[in-house]
């Protein structure tokens, strides 16, 4: 094998030497033959001619020897590439249009693929992530459902666990924490986690330690682990920070660790930069209050299926033990890498197929351009074939030319992708930007993306090169020469018609898809939201929750002050506050019982989403009340409770 490669390489790169060798070898043979003829009685001149005659054609033999060495293909390829470059440079306008068209097509595909690659194809950044599972509550009559777990249920799971090496839990909602005391106050997104959290994920802090089990108890809970990014930006990467005290939501917390730089944690909302140990509040201790996400590491020889079966048994057991809160519930597991990718997958692959169509259109366009430059090329190939070029040879040459264009387009496409992916990063909606445990902070063009680009570039080259290749090589030499001289393109016209038909069809598909999307967008925009968003400004604010756990609620007073102060700003007509903004602001939900009707029990109560609002809310948002009155300053915690319901609810009940 090695030997063969060496022979070919030397034939390629030491071409002159190899040729000289061949010359000398054949000359030696000729001389010997001549000598023999002279010895046989011929004159020197006669002998030489006879020897040459015996050889047939020296050049022909040489050619066959070259071919026998197996390098002719590569040599011809070199010729084709050089010729193709010259042809392209002779028609700069055409070449530019073709390359730009292909660059855009290939660039679009590369961009979408780089997003898919960065978001979906990268492994979850935890060691042995294929042993990590999320543990969910589920409904017996809907095994596909995934519910977050209540703390008591999780603690029971943990007690009965015999399939996981360890289990951990974190608050599904996360929370903003105020850092103050040292420099400018800063709001940081953080999350409560069980002490085992970092151990289960297999993450070692870069500095300090992770949480201890006893830190889950109230009083010992004032310790915090900081994210690498926060440690760098706020504390200048101070290695002595561990052990020091910082103010978190106004209380003194001890920094015990800093996560490694590659550790990134985010689930349903943005990345977290701060971790505090869980201690279960009164609300958490309600078995019916589901607010945690459980993660666990499988024991070495336990399969996901076994774990799923075991958790189902445990879940059904708990349903029997606590029918009030757990009736109809069970539990299940899911590999960490398989959860929560559906939206991203379907959206991104739809985008990729649209980009694919765009590339197809680009191909057809360029193919059309190539065949349109027909008459001239046709005559060229007619002459070639008259001189003895085979059809396969002609097709190869044309495909080489189209591949050159494609490669230029591929390089351009990578440039386009580098530019558009940074653009895309800015406009990508949040739900496409992040999947559990990974977020799209940057779109990298790595070797996988380059390989993808390379493959589509090659396909592209063949795809748009095939039509002209077949067209130009097909013609009978004689006919073409005559036709060419008359300047007509005969059969080419048919092919080009076909290309146009394909192109229009493809464009129609993409346009229809785009049109449908625009239409549903228009419908969405035309839906009357029931409020008047004109001249309404919103801002978000979160308050420290310390008082929610162990003090009198301070929120109403704060909201009232805020409302008053904002309302007194010149130009502000009215101001209010709401717990959840309508449309996309999320909402809380709870069950209710209607006065005068029997209570069907907590599991069968009707439920509804609700928002807590301040006085003036409806006026500020431009929401018209159908009947009744708005909340007023008199509707305080001490006054009789009041609610406002919507029309749908009043109709239903």
């Amino acid at each position, binding site marked *: 094998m090695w030997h063969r490669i060496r022979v070919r390489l030397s034939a390629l790169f030491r071409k002159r030497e190899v040729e000289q060798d061949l010359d*000398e*070898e054949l000359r030696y043979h000729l*001389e010997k033959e001549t000598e023999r003829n002279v010895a046989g009685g011929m004159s020197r001149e006669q002998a030489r001619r006879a020897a040459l005659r015996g050889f047939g054609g020296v050049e022909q033999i040489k050619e066959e020897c*070259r071919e*026998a*060495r*197996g390098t002719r293909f590569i040599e011809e390829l070199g010729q084709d590439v050089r010729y193709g470059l010259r042809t392209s440079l002779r028609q700069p306008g055409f070449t530019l249009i073709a390359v730009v068209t292909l660059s855009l097509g290939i660039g679009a595909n590369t961009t979408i693929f780089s997003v898919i690659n960065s978001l979906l194809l990268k492994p979850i950044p935890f060691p042995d992530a294929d042993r990590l599972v999320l543990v969910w509550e589920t409904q017996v009559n809907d095994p596909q459902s995934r519910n977050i777990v209540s703390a008591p249920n999780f603690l029971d799971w943990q007690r009965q666990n015999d399939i996981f090496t360890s289990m951990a839990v974190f608050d599904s909602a996360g929370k903003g924490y105020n850092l103050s005391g040292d420099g400018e106050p800063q709001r940081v997104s953080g999350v409560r986690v069980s002490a085992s959290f970092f151990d289960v994920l297999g993450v070692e802090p870069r500095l300090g330690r992770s949480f201890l089990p006893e830190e889950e108890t109230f009083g010992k809970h004032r310790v915090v682990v900081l994210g690498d990014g926060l440690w760098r930006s706020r504390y200048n990467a101070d290695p002595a920070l561990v052990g020091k005290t910082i103010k978190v939501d106004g209380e003194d917390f001890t920094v015990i660790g800093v996560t490694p730089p590659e550790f990134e944690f985010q689930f349903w909302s943005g990345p977290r930069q701060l971790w505090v140990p869980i201690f279960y509040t009164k609300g958490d201790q309600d078995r019916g209050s589901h607010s945690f996400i459980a993660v666990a590491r499988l024991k070495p020889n336990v399969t996901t299926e076994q774990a799923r079966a075991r958790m189902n048994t445990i879940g059904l057991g708990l349903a029997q033990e606590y029918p009030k809160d757990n009736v109809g519930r069970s539990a299940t597991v899911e590999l960490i890498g398989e959860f929560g990718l559906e939206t991203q997958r379907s959206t991104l692959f739809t985008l990729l197929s649209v980009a694919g169509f765009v590339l197809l259109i680009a191909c057809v366009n360029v193919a059309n351009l190539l065949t349109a430059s027909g008459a001239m090329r046709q005559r060229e190939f007619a002459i070639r074939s008259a001189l003895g070029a085979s059809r396969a040879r002609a097709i190869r040459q044309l495909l080489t030319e189209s591949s050159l264009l494609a490669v230029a387009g591929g390089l351009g496409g990578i440039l386009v992708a580098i530019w558009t992916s940074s653009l895309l990063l800015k406009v990508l909606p949040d739900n496409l930007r992040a999947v559990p445990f990974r977020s799209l902070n940057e779109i990298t063009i790595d070797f996988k993306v380059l390989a993808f680009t390379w493959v589509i570039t090659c396909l592209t080259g063949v795809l748009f090169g095939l039509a002209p290749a077949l067209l130009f090589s097909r013609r009978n030499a004689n006919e073409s020469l005559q036709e060419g001289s008359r300047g007509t393109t005969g059969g080419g016209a048919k092919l080009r018609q076909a290309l146009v038909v394909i192109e229009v069809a493809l464009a129609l598909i993409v346009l229809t898809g785009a049109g449908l999307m625009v239409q549903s967008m228009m419908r969405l925009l035309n839906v009357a939201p029931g409020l008047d968003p004109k001249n309404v400004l919103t801002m978000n604010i979160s308050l420290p929750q310390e008082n929610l756990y162990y003090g009198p609620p301070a929120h109403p007073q704060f909201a009232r002050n805020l409302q008053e102060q904002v309302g007194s700003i010149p130009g502000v007509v009215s101001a209010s506050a709401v717990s959840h903004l309508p449309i996309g602001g999320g909402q809380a939900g709870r069950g209710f019982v209607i006065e005068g009707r029997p209570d069907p029990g907590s599991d069968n109560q009707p439920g509804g989403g609700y928002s807590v609002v301040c006085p003036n809310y409806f006026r500020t948002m431009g929401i018209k009340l159908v009947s009744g009155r708005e909340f007023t300053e008199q509707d305080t915690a001490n006054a009789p409770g009041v609610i406002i319901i919507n029309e749908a609810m009043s109709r239903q009940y």
Partner: protein
Amino acid sequence: MTRGKTDLLAGTLDLIVLRLLRAGPANGWDITQRIQVISKEVLSVNYGSLYPALHRLEARGWIVSEWGESENNRRAKFYRLTAAGRKQLAAERKAWERFSGALEAILRTT
């Protein structure tokens, strides 16, 4: 061709070249002469096919070439059988024996 000479059967030239080189390194001219002498002038080799065959065998790694001195100090290219070439020779020889045996059997019976 003329004088009762027979053209080589397609595919047999490789076998012949490999077999002749088993005796030791030789150049192209030597090989043509030996074929004629050993076959008692029955087989004649067309030079036009010998040299491409040598280059092909070399490209496949069955023989290697090196420049050496022939008689009266002239530079000539000598070909030598490699280990892979030896194996190939054995295989081709076996294939040829099977073929010629079968052909003979047919010629005798019918």
